């Protein structure tokens, strides 16, 4: 053992060891990327399965149909008559209908402000008290008046009302059923869920007059058009990339597929052929949506409160009618009704490749962690390097390095590097503040000005540095070391909260590990221009163009997410990535080369 230790110690002194870290770091990035790419293969992903035995999906006969169809038609007429009316009138009618079959009704108004605009409205909801329950648990059926696409959710609302009337007649419910009708899918549900958990800001959101027990699950319906459908789109992304328990997606998919014969798909991959490409594409779409962390549907706001929720969206032309959709919801609710405790058995961290294939956190997390580790490896490497005395003579360096000892380390001047890194992180608060506080119509201009400043800032800082401080090689290494250390540890923390966001930022920031000050001036400018290609403002702009959206809309969405939903993606971009990029560029331009 002691021999092993001493040989390990002598290896530490090997000069070759000090050359390895950059390669190791590059290998980390490469392996991290390849790791992600092999995940869709059969060997690395698994088939989904239902872990919670109490769910028993598809084990009960569903009775929705038959004469309910007439009720549905009647409600559809009533809902159609409300088309285009204002929220208050719509809610009056819904309240009347709900009260008509004996459901307690509550209403809640809210006003949020974000990006200079006001988002206000009124929720109406009914609580169907469980005949066999004690009002300690509840499941929610969410039916926004507007769909995700922005059209009126006519069939959805009519179907929800029919289902409510139908559920009321059954005596088997052991959990209360809450029917929530927000005016639109994003703000209304957020206000309602906040108020349900007493986490609302009373200045913007009024409290709920009526409550039930702990929410055990929620389903949202997104069914605008009055036509028969072929498949079911399950939308599951929550705010900040949190996901519902995999059991819920599986249970709903199982009820739809195996009981009703309706195939389901995810992430808009309608034509999923179960090939490698399709799986990869689904996974990437999932990661992108998770990374952005914004609302995907009316269910998203529930997930931060540990209420598992999905949105169901009928898709395509086929022979499935509204009653089939109703039976899917009935079957899923019966399953949720069976639950003895909160969904906890299955995974909360997963990447879905298709409706029935997934990888769990243990399998995919190493890829993001490897990306984050590359920064930490380089940070430690640069720290060690900065502590070595510069070589005086080339010849005796070999002899010297074998007898390298503790007294050979030079003193490090850490004040300037620490100040640069801390300063750039403090500066990151500025874009965070302006993009989340300014009104929507000035956002594109603010973005343009900020991008210009962001490009010029490193030039100014490096000019000041070179003219006043004459920074040394050691200071350059330490600056980079500190910056990469902070980046690495922020990203590895982020990877546990939002894997995709951490992976995307890690990948985009990975060149920062390798750019360094050089003696040749053209190479220096080449590095700088390469860096400006991967600058956060450039990437944000490119992303908006690729997605076919306006930068202003993107920023408005981000501001809305930050102010209303509590999305923290802007912090990761402006508070972690942008400072690291700024320090990286300053390091290339303003420091002496080794």
């Amino acid at each position, binding site marked *: 053992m*002691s021999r092993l*230790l*001493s040989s390990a*110690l002598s290896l530490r002194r090997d000069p070759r060891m000090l050359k390895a870290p950059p390669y190791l770091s590059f290998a980390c990035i490469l392996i991290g990327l390849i790791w992600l790419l092999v995940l869709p293969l059969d060997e690395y992903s698994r088939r989904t399965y239902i872990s919670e035995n109490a769910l028993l999906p598809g084990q009960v006969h569903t009775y929705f149909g038959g004469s309910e169809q007439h009720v549905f038609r009647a409600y559809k007429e009533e809902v159609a008559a409300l088309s285009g009316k204002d929220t208050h009138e719509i809610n009056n009618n819904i309240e009347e209908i709900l009260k008509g079959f004996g459901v307690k009704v509550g209403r809640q108004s809210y006003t949020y402000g974000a990006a200079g605009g006001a988002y206000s409205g009124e929720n109406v909801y009914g609580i169907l008290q469980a005949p066999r329950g004690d009002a300690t648990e509840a499941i929610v059926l969410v039916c926004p008046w507007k769909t995700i696409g922005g059209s009126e959710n006519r069939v959805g609302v009519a179907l929800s009302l029919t289902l409510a009337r139908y559920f009321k007649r059954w005596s088997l419910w052991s959990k209360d059923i809450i029917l929530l009708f927000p005016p639109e899918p994003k703000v209304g549900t957020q206000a309602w869920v906040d108020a349900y958990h007493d986490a609302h800001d009373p200045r913007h959101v009024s409290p709920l007059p009526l409550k039930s027990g702990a929410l055990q699950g929620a389903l949202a319906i997104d069914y605008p058009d009055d036509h028969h459908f072929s498949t079911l789109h399950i939308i599951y992304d929550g705010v900040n990339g*949190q996901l519902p328990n995999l059991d819920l997606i599986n249970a709903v998919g199982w009820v739809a597929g195996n009981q009703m014969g309706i195939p389901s798909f995810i992430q808009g991959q309608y034509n999923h052929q179960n090939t490698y490409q399709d799986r990869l594409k689904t996974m990437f779409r999932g990661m992108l949506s998770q990374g952005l962390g914004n609302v995907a549907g009316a269910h998203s706001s529930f997930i*931060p409160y*540990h209420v598992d929720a999905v949105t169901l969206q009928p898709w395509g032309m086929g022979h499935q009618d509204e009653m089939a959709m109703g039976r899917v919801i009935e079957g899923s609710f019966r399953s949720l009704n069976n639950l003895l405790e*909160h969904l*906890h058995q299955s995974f*909360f*961290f997963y990447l879905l490749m298709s409706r029935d294939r997934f990888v769990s956190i243990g399998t995919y997390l190493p890829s993001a962690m490897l990306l984050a580790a590359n920064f*930490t490896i380089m*940070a*430690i490497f640069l*720290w060690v390097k900065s502590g070595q005395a510069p070589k005086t003579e080339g010849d005796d360096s070999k002899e010297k390095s074998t007898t390298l*000892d*503790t*007294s*050979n*380390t030079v*003193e490090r001047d850490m004040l300037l590097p620490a100040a640069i890194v801390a300063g750039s992180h403090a500066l990151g608060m500025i874009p965070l503040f302006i993009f989340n506080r300014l009104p929507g119509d000035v956002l594109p201009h603010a973005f343009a000005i900020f991008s210009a400043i962001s490009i010029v800032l490193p030039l100014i800082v490096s000019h000041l540095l070179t003219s006043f401080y004459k920074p040394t090689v050691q200071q350059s290494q330490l600056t980079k070391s500190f910056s990469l*250390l902070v980046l690495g*540890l*922020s990203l*590895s*923390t982020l990877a*546990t*909260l939002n894997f995709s966001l951490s992976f995307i930022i890690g990948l985009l920031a990975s060149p920062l590990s390798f750019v360094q000050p050089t003696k040749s001036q053209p190479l220096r400018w080449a590095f700088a221009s390469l860096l400006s290609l991967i600058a956060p403002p450039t990437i944000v702009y490119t992303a908006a163009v690729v997605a076919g959206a306006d930068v202003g809309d993107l920023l408005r969405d981000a501001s809305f997410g930050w102010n209303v939903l509590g999305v923290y993606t802007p912090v990761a971009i402006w508070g972690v990535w942008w400072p690291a990029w700024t320090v990286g560029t300053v390091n290339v331009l303003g420091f002496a080369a080794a």
Partner: protein
Amino acid sequence: MTFRGKAGIYAIAVLLRLVLFFAFPGLPDLLTGRVEISTPVTSFKRLEEGLFLYNHNVWPYDGGVYHQAPLLLPLFSLLPDSTSWPIFTPLLYILIDLLSADALVKIAASGEAGKSRLYTSPRQGKGSTGLVIAAAFLFNPLTIASCVGRTTSVFTNCAILFAIAKAVQGFSFHAMVALSFASYLSMYPVLLLPPLVLLAYDRRAYQKTSVLKFSALNVLVVAGCLSVLLGMSYALTGNSWEFLARTYGIQLTLTDLTPTVGLWWYFFIEMFDSFRSFFLALFWLHLASYVGGLSIRLRNQPLAALAVLLGIFSIFKPYPSISDTSLFLGLFSLYTHLLPLMRYTYVASATLMYASFLGPAFYHLWIYAGSGNANFFYAITLVWSLGQSLLVSDLTFAVLRDEWEVERPEMVGKEAKQI
């Protein structure tokens, strides 16, 4: 060290804390609720609960929430009502922080870290100035967080630093009284008695008393002081000794299993009841066993023994918090002249930084998001303890290596191998 520099640092520290207290009104309560800062025996929230009961003439330990020393109650009820006058509690805590920093400055000014009675370090005088040490303590995020989180362990920390400062100044009586206060508040500081007595003895060696006589006298002072404090508490809590079980008893038996950054809670959650008392004894024995060994081994440098012990306590005591770590880091900064001898400072500080980022994230996953479990947070407390133990062992190594190089000058700069 000019007075202007010192006053400037203190002024900035006060200003920073006032800004944090009053510009972010939600921050103090947020930090007070964090398990990393508030432990069951130091939480300000629990103190408020005890205070409420005390002010309404209810026995403060009723309800099983308050586990802190009884004398804190009259101190805090002397302050004006915190709802109508919210300024006084922050001011008290800021004052305590300044007193701690001032004690550190005095310890640094004595030069004890570089030159004690029995030992003179070859690196003496290469360390940081008192000003830098005070700044490092006052602007340490851990110190700021525990000040804004209003944990009562800052009183203990201040008393410990005050005791050390008095000891290096040669006022052994004051040092012992301060240590009694610290022990009265948190119990564990009583373990610091042997090295502290040695430190005080070394600084008064000109008086030519024998160690034994000096120690006996000081132990008597501590015992007397503690019995007065406990007697006052006895009278204060309605003439009953029951408070002992509710304060020190909780620490001894770990009946409150609230998570902390330490290693005890998880272990005792998992424990079968039949083994509980055995492992409690073992854990306490482990904690106490360092005192003798370190006092003897580091006899030449009692201040180093105190620093290392405080580091060990902040890892292994029953309810540690980041406030204990900030105390250790404060004393650690006295030994910056040994930094070239330390080997893992970067790795240790990177580990601590990783843990302080990942800890809150994993706690969030466990408690709020519900997607993680207790193992997540416990894993991070292990990393946190690993980082601290790296720092403690590195400090010990550097102190011993420094001594060794004086004994064997031919080995200066050579590789030391552990056999």
